């Protein structure tokens, strides 16, 4: 059997992490290709439901990344996001969603190397955890073929 290749969805802000990821490329730093990047105007715009939808659609891991505190293009979007992440993470933890699979980070436009590092370590840790089967079982075929009671 081929080695498990994790599918990872990255929700990133346009101004810092997306630019940072660009820099990773232009600096020719090689990094794992398991990540699908979704660009948002700001981390403050990343609805927690989107993270759940990523798991629904088969993601094994998620990266959420934006500007460092005090660097937000819109002044405080990342501060708001951070507060929401705190609560969302703890709710996920409480409901048994594997929080090891959701990675939060700050990556600025200048941190091309850090982005590569975040992706590589996330891919490595998800690879170790294996596919997110628990969630997939619930998400994939939720109504039984012939259900009863």
């Amino acid at each position: 059997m081929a080695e498990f290749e994790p599918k990872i969805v990255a929700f990133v802000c346009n101004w810092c992490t997306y630019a940072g990821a660009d820099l990773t490329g232009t600096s020719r730093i090689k990094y794992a290709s398991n990540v699908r990047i979704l660009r948002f105007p700001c981390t403050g715009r990343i609805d927690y439901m989107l993270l759940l939808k990523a798991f629904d659609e088969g993601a094994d891991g998620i990266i959420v990344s934006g500007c460092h505190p005090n660097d937000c293009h819109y002044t405080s979007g990342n501060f708001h996001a951070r507060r929401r992440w705190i609560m969302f993470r703890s709710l996920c933890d409480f409901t048994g969603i594997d929080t090891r699979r959701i990675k939060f980070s700050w990556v600025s436009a200048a941190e091309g190397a850090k982005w590569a590092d975040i992706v590589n370590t996330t891919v490595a840790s998800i690879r170790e955890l294996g596919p997110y089967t628990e969630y997939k079982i619930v998400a994939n075929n939720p109504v039984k073929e012939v259900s009863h009671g």
Partner: protein
Amino acid sequence: MNIDKRLVRKDSLEKLFDILKQNSKTIYAPFSKNSKVSFREADSFSGITTDYIQTTQSSKEVAFPRNEKILNYSKDKEGMKVKGIDLNDIPEVVLWGVRPCDTMGIGELSAIFNWDYKDEIYNNRLSRVTVFGFSCSKSDDYCFCTSVGGNPGNTQGSDILFTQLGENGDYLAEILTDKGSSIVSISSALFEKTENIEKEKFLAEVPARFEREEIRGKLEKFFDSQLWVEQSLKCIGCGACAYVCPTCACFDIQDEAHGKSGSRVRCWDSCGFSTFTLHTSGHNPREVQSQRWRQRIMHKFLIMPDRLSVYGCTGCGRCSRACPVDMNILEHLISIQEVSL
């Protein structure tokens, strides 16, 4: 026709259960969890509860599951493939411990699913269900089966109706249909021949509280009554009443996609929800809760009798028990009867 009456010893019920299992029947029976009694698949006889006036949810799910696939589709290079569900996969089910108000509800539900267009998914499920009714020896303030054409020992809808002869007593079994007889034929030793037993004195007493024909007559002229507004003021618009009801059949059809394949699902819906009749344009024919409450009562006591020749209420009282704000349907029906036009 004379009803075939047999005696089933109290201890024989477990044996009967085992025989059914050996005959690869799936058995649904009442179990208690978090102080709520509900039907679920029974692996063993122990644990089946007998201590309940009425289960929290009705048994309608065996024929009308709350989520039910109606087709699967997949897209690939060759095109679109759509496949209905295979009705042959539906298991043979014994529904154990159903109260007579629920067994009566089966007929009312069937009337909806067979109104001109025959719903074969529903009919196929139902045709594989054998119903073991259990008469009521107890009732509570919510029960009103006798006001809507039922009674605590009603045989309607059961294949076999069991009536316990006194607390801890043996059971009288009335074999009512061919399905019932076929159960007897695989376990005939357990169904003993018996002298005529009168079950009436072992049944709960449920006094009749209203005349449903009279209510139906009033409802004809009641559409614009202020009463709906008054009654529904405390209604908070949830769907609990509809979901526990043995005869509520309203449903939604939803598609569930996963990549290039998915399924179409029929799932329960409730006329109590504000979005139930909402048009995409924003227009809503039933905009406020009083109109939705009116629909609920009208549907059961006027529209169904007029269009389907059956009433849509069996007097099980579940909706009142389940209601988070104590909207008591019996009280409301009585107050409709009492209004002078």
